């Protein structure tokens, strides 16, 4: 199982959401996708997409305006 990192620091709507989806499409079942970014709305919206896609949201963290979201495919 691979761990795929996606860096969306400084990116704004809709890039973090789209980059997350692109990474999830390429990932294999069981892989972990970890997205980091700074766009505030994406911190709420990426988990919405994860739910809509029926995947598992492992963790959401935020520190100093930077968030980190972990997803299992």
């Amino acid at each position, binding site marked *: 199982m691979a761990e795929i990192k996606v860096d969306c620091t400084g990116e*704004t709507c*809709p890039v973090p959401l*789209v980059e997350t989806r692109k990474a999830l499409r390429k990932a294999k079942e069981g892989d972990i996708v970890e997205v980091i970014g700074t766009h505030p709305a994406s911190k709420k919206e990426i988990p919405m997409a994860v739910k809509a896609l029926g995947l598992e949201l492992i963790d959401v963290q935020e520190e100093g305006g930077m968030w980190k979201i972990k997803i299992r495919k």
Partner: protein
Amino acid sequence: MAGKVTIIVHSGDMDKVYSAFIVANGALAMGMEASLFFTFWGLQRLKKGELGKGPLSKMNMLGLGKWMVKRRMKKAGAASLERLLQDFHELGGKILACDMTMQIMGIKKEDLRDDLISDYCAVGTYIDEAKDSTITLFI
């Protein structure tokens, strides 16, 4: 979440084309299908090299307003229209081109970015796409 978004892109204004691609890419990112039906002024944006060439829908001021907005967008880290189009394509979005607009405006297939266009069609295809869509917009 399944479902589908179908958008008529009638406007060729830069800001409105942005809206269409942002909504469509958001839908694709959330696992929906998305189709963009380009017609009239919107279709002009599918000509080679014309994607970002539209004016601003308001306060264009002979391009000065557009220049200011583009500068601010760059500062905010907004993606280019070309990037949004490539992402749309990569995530399986469908681009439809209105053939009547092509006839009226004398646009040929070779004038358009044919590699990105799934179909050259008319209202029947739009309805066929839209009838199964949970979201449909006219921009």
